[in-house]
Each structure stands twice: as structure tokens, then as C-alpha cells.
């Protein structure tokens, strides 16, 4: 990792995406099945529910060199576990405040509701996120 060259010119953002098993993960799958072009920068970690995503994971991802973190869950009201995504919603909100205090642009953390049928949305969101991160540039953490 240390050898990774992070420069604006030759910058391919690294996105860690925590996707819920029932909606966004399947939506991503659909995007693939439907041959939609989505960002190759995304590195997916499947969780059963977006509610499983511990802020620790997000910090860890940034620490490990991610330029952006995306959390994808079912739409509010459609959670497979009925209300897991409400907790995600609050956690992300809280975490964004913390990230700002940590001096990390909260835009680097993105929460998206993408249902299993929204392959197009998945493609669109990831592409957009990648573009946004490109503009933000690489995240270089101080030791």
C-alpha cells in the first residue's frame, strides 16, 4: 500500500462499498447482468444488512487507503429486516459529523438506497461517486 502512488494526474479512486445483501448487492448484480457500465473503482463488501456496517469499518477503510466509502441499503421502508436501514441512516449521519471533525471531507462517505431492481441506479451512483472522488483527489492520511 505504501508503494501506491497517489497523485491527481494518475488517480484511480479506490471505493469500498458495503452493500446490503437484499437490495444494493442484488442491484449491483443486476447492473452486471444487464451489462451496465459501473465504476470499476468500487470494491464491494457484502453485508446482510446495511445496519451491519460499523463506523469502525468505514474508518478502517479510509485508514487502509480508500478514497471513498459507499454504503448501500434498501430503500427506507423496504428493508428486508424491516428497519435496519434506519440505524444505518443515523449512523452515517453521525459518522459524517465525526469525519468532518477528523478533517476528512464527509462527501467521501456516501449512503445510497438502491433496490434490487435498480441496477441502473447502482451504475449511475457509482459512476457519479467515482467522478466526485476524482475531483476531490486522493485521500492521504497523515501519520
Amino acid at each position, binding site marked *: 500500500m505504501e508503494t501506491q502512488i497517489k497523485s491527481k494526474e494518475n488517480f484511480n479512486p479506490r471505493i469500498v462499498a458495503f452493500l446490503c445483501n437484499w437490495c444494493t448487492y442484488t442491484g449491483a448484480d443486476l447492473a452486471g447482468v444487464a451489462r451496465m457500465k459501473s465504476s470499476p473503482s468500487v470494491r464491494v463488501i457484502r*453485508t446482510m444488512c446495511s445496519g451491519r456496517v460499523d463506523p469502525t469499518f468505514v474508518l478502517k477503510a479510509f485508514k487502509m487507503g480508500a478514497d471513498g466509502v459507499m454504503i448501500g441499503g434498501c430503500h427506507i421502508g423496504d428493508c428486508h429486516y424491516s428497519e*435496519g436501514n434506519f440505524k444505518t441512516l443515523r449512523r452515517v449521519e453521525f459518522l459524517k459529523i465525526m469525519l468532518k471533525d477528523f478533517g476528512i471531507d464527509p462527501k467521501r462517505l456516501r449512503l445510497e438506497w438502491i433496490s434490487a431492481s435498480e441496477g441502473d441506479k447502482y451504475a449511475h451512483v457509482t459512476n457519479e461517486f467515482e467522478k466526485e472522488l476524482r475531483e476531490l483527489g486522493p485521500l492521504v492520511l497523515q501519520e
Partner: protein
Amino acid sequence: MIKLTIDGKQLEVFEDTSILKAAEKAGIWIPTMCHCDYIEPYGVCRLCSVEVVKGKRSRIVTACNYPVREGLTVRTNSERVKWIRKIIMELMLSRWPNVPAVKEMAEQLGISKPRFESKEKDEAEDACILCGMCVNVCNDLVGKGVLGFSKMGIEREVVLPYNERSEECIACGACAYVCPTKHIKVKSLEYERGAIQDWSLASKTAIYVPTMQAVPRVPTIDEASCINKQTGGCKACQTYCEPGAINYDMKDEEIEVEVGQILITTGYQLMDLTKMPQFGYGRLDNVYSSLDFEHMLNSTGPTNGTIQCKDGSVPRAVGIIHCIGSRDENYHKYCSRVCCMYALKFAHLIKDRTTAEVYQFYIDMRAFGKGYEEFYKRLLDEGVNMIRGKVGEVTECRVDGEKPFLKVACEDTLIGKFREIPLDMVILCPAIESNADSSDLKKIFSISQSPDKFFLERHPKLDPMSTMTDGIFIAGCAQGPKDIPDSVAQASGAAAKILSLISVGEVAVDPIKAEIVEERCSGCRICNNLCPYGAISYIDEKKISFINDMLCKGCGTCVAACPSSVITGKGFTDAQIMAEIEGLLAI
């Protein structure tokens, strides 16, 4: 049972039977003008007056409501009785000389001309004779009490409250039904406003056999139109059903069945055609939906299978318009898949049963199934006019002296011209839609919907009948528009999937569960109200929280929330996910 004598005839009847009923049993006719079997005797026409003899004394009573007693002697045809009836009929006849029911009764009693001249004479044929049957039916049988009498004495009349249209009236029509003079008429305000077509394809009584093909083929009560279900009254059918088969207490009941797997085959609904007013459905006569037309074609349908216009005439030309709401950016982008073929079938049957010209207005013909293309070819040979182009609107044209016809305006893309085609009948092919309540169903089963609102399969190619939720399967139009063979195939496939699980007898449960390391839980209770399944409970004695792993579905929300990391999520432990993060970002 008691014994009595009527006009010398000995008979036995139950105590408290009315003289009228007893006489009926004995085959003796007693005239009545205010009596009907549905309601309690009202006893106001007094025509049924009979003489009851007790020893030397006799008295006049009304047969309709006089309960018989042991040893009663009744004379129904004595001079005194005849004299009373005669004067009553004279009184009635003098007031309502032209009402058929009165005239007939007078004739039966041998009275031709009354000796009285009534100052209140009403010469209408449908005059109200104040028998009160309507009022009593409404009050006692229907239980609504909408009708009533107003004024006293000779000015008495039947009225609605304040002589205005009553909001209480349920328009059951019982009053009009019992009215002996047809004084009461039921009219549909909807029809007057022109909001509904008067040729109803679904007229039925409150008791009906669902369909001729119903199994079991027995009558059922339509709760929406049954008076008893609305007001608790009526029960007329119970009075007449000799085997006593009618039971109002039977209710639709909710039965809970425990099952391991569910196949959702809730089908579809047709698009509401009134959303597209340019086609005139519900507004113009002789514009039908495909389902209406199918009903007309049915040999047990309203026209016994003949194809006819509203006025009963055979149509000269029929147009079938495809893709109403399907393949339409404004409504549904998808193809409803079945319309092309049933439209061809309609064309074939119209050709077969009538001499009408048939026009098909289509965008693309999609004869994709086995044998379908051949059928299409055959139709072309039968001389069906195929017009490729979208229809703009359907309008009604009236030419003096001729019956009105419909005009379809469309662009014929094959010849590149705008055309207007006169037709007698138009059949619209509405889009197949996901049911209006499918989002509720979706939530109940924790499954997903595609953007087109049909239920989403687990995988469009590899697993088209499973859903993301284990044990929940889908088939048929609930999953997407399809024709019967496709539906059957998919349903069979789903059934096979279900059976394969049943035959195993055991289901492997996902091991993904959360677990509390009991020794390390401090009982902070942060996790306690997080679980939507109530899997987490607090053990007071130990002052720790506990997860019931049978209830746990493994979402991991509590795992993330546990501030001391004593809840672990099997399969998705912190360590595993951390390792994933590290691994993913290693390069």
C-alpha cells in the same frame, strides 16, 4: 296444532297462524291489498275482513293478522263480509279508478262502479294506494326506515324525509319491488348523469352463482348488495329456503395456515381505461374493454354469445386497438405480451359470428409463441384489415336519420397517411398492470418489485421463480405479463422447486446469526430495542442481554451497535470484515 273451521272446512294448523295463512292452506281465497309475505301484517286495507263466530256472537276481524285459536269458526264469505269488502272496494275504486291492481280486485269481487264520488280522485294508473308495503318493507325488512307517511287522514301520503333524496336510502329497490301499482320507481342518478353505461355486463342479484363453471356450483350471497349484510334486515331468502340452507352468520373468516413455502401467483389487473379518455371508454357507447368483449362472447354472458351493439344491432365494422397503455412512455413502457394474440382471436371470432369488417390497429404484431405466427397468417387470409399505427382518438359521429357510429382517427404508417375509419364497435386492449396492492404484498413477504411494479425474481435468467426471500416463490403475471402457457410453465417450475424442498423434509437454515458472548456482556442494553424480530431480550437475574437464535435473522444491526463488541455476527464477524477491507485495499 289446533283445529278450526273456515267456511265449514275443518283444518289443523299451528297455533298463532293467521287466518289468512290458514285459509290459504284450506284453499280459500281471501282478498288482500296490503299484505305481502316479507313483512308483518299491516292490516290497513281491511279487505281481508272476515267474520269470527263465537257462540251466537260474531265479530269482524282482519284475517291477515288474527291469530287462530282452538275451535275458532271463521266465515270468509258471509253476507256481512261481502258487504264490507264491497264498500271498501267502492271506496278504493272511487279514489283510484284507473289503477290496474284496484280494478282487477274490484272485478274479482264483482264490483264495477262505485256508488261514491271521491273528491280526492286520482286518475293516474300508477297512483299510490297507501297500502304501506313500501314503508313497511323499508322499515321492517330493510331496516332503513327511509320511507314514511306524512300528513293525516285523507291527506296521508308516502314521502321521503322532507321530500328530499335521502342519504340513508341504500337504493335496494325493495320498495319498488313490493309496490303493487308501480308508483315507486328506482332510477339511477349515475345513469342520468351519463356516468355509467346502461348496458351493464354484470347485472346480478344479491344471491347468485359466481360463474357457470364455479366449483362447487352453489349460490352465494354478495355481501355488497345483500340488504341483510348492510342493515341486518330483510332475511327474505331465509323465509323461502325450505331446506334452511341460508345462514347469515357465515362470514368470510381468516384462517391461519402454517406453511414453509409460499408461491405468490396474485396475477395482474387491467389498466383503468378511463385514464385515457381519448378512447372514449365509459363515455361512448359501444366502446368496450377486451374483458367486456370476452364477456359478450361468452355463451353464458349477457348476450348469450352474440356480438351486438348496445341497441341490439349487429355491428357493421369493429375496430380492435392494441397497446392501450402498453409500450407507452406515458403509462407503461413494457409490452403486455398477450394483447396481440387475443386481438387476433377476437378478429377471428367476429369474422366467424358476424359479417362485420374487422380492423386491427397495432404498433407491431408480436406473434412470438408456438403456432402464433401461423394463426396470424391465417387471420390475414381471413381478410382482417391490419392498420399499423397508433390510434389518436375515438369519437362519436351523428348523422341525421342514421344511427350514430364511432370514428377512429389514426395514422397508417404503412401507407404513410392519416386515416379516419368509421366503426360500430371499438374494443380496447388495456395494459396488464401489477395489482394495486402489490406494494403491500411486497412488504409482507420482504420481496422486491421491479420498476414496472411486478415482483422481482432472484435472477432473471437463472432463477426466475425464486425471490430474494427464501421460501417465497413467484409465478405468472405477478412476476410480469405473460400468456397462459408461460404462466403454466413458470408455475409448474415453481411448484417443482417447492416440492424439491418438501421432499428433502428439512431446510438448511442460514447460519448467519448474531450471538452474545455471555461472559463479556455488561448489560448496557443498547442492543435491546434494536431487533425488529424481538430476538434480543434482557435477562434480569444475570444482568445481561440474550439473543434467541431462532428468532434472529442475522441482519447484524446489533453486532454493529454493540459498544463492547460482545455481539458477534456469524459469517460477518468484525474480524472477517476487517480482513475483507484489508484485502480489498491491499492492492
